[in-house]
């Protein structure tokens, strides 16, 4: 197909598909009329059963925790895949430092940006940490916390300190941290199996005060490991892509 033909064929077929989709969508109960019962059933029991005031986290790490296991490993595989595809091949070497001085590798950053980025790094790390450890109380959790932690590293990069970035996250170590995060989640689930309970059963005693950090049994623990995994995975991905900007082919 030539691009022209393709566009016209798509406009016809795509209109058909979208019309078909709309036809089905118009059979929904209408916006704002969610019929239940799944969500309402969980809303009724979640706070009492898990002591978590953030029901979304209770679902992610408890009711549908098994989905989250899969989700973490999707991220794990993505990091592994990026590392596999972008691994240094024969005939590629790192660009000599001389070029770096010429400002061709690391995009030149103005000092204002560097200042702002550095100033933000501390609060972002704190915020990430807080989010990862308060999954069961407020809109937060391991995923958001972890990704914010990773953002802190991106900020360090923005501040122009690429070498600091590399020192902070040597790929091998990040790999280990990531695997520990993903594996830790699995192990928490397996501990329940070892006790003769169903996989991922929340086996820790619930606290007295709903909403406190240690009040919801395994939820806080799982959220913590998810945070580690997510942060490490994203740092790994960004680091691999950054590495690429420093790579040239031999003789090229």
């Amino acid at each position: 197909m030539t691009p022209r033909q393709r566009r016209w064929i798509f406009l016809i077929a795509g209109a058909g598909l979208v019309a078909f989709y709309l036809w089905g969508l118009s059979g929904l109960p209408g916006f704002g009329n969610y019929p239940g019962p799944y969500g309402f059933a969980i809303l009724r029991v979640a706070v009492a059963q898990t002591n978590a005031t953030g029901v979304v986290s209770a679902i992610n790490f408890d009711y549908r925790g098994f989905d989250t296991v899969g989700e973490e490993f999707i991220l794990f595989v993505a990091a592994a895949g990026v590392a596999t595809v972008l691994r240094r091949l024969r005939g590629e070497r790192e660009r000599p430092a001389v070029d770096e001085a010429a400002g061709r590798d690391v995009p030149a950053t103005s000092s204002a940006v560097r200042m702002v980025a550095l100033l933000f790094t501390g609060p972002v790390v704190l915020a990430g940490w807080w989010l990862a450890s308060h999954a069961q109380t407020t809109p937060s959790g391991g995923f958001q916390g972890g990704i914010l932690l990773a953002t802190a590293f991106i900020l360090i990069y923005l501040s122009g300190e690429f070498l600091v970035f590399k020192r902070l996250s040597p790929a091998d170590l990040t790999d280990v941290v990531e695997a520990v995060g993903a594996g830790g989640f699995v192990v928490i689930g397996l501990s329940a199996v070892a006790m003769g309970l169903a996989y991922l059963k929340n086996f820790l005693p619930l606290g007295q005060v709903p909403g406190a950090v240690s009040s919801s049994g395994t939820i806080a623990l799982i959220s913590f490991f998810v945070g580690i995994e997510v942060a490490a995975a994203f740092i790994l991905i960004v680091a691999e892509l950054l590495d690429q900007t420093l790579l040239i082919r031999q003789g090229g």
Partner: protein
Amino acid sequence: MQVFPFVVVAWILGVGLYGVVTSRHLVHQIVCLIVVQSSTYVLLLGVGYVTGGVAPYFFDVPNHTPAVDPVVQACALTDVVVEAAVTAMLLSFAIQAYKRFGTLDPQELAELKG
């Protein structure tokens, strides 16, 4: 308002697919794929919305306040992770494709590959 959010969902899906089909640059195509996926977030959160409901957090509101469906929100979170993962992987393919082929046009990639 009954169907409008879903019309937007279908529009985003159609526009995203249009972008994927007509794109002549892999990075552009990957961004269009992100748009296709974003239609699923809006759909998920749209079907779980309850008029007048609060967010499903009971930190500072009483326990049985009517709230929107938390399940679709958990699903949307998973979906966001999937998006990030798939995009990262596709971009690494694109970089490698550029190194091997010297172009990012899908049409030329196919011709160069033989």
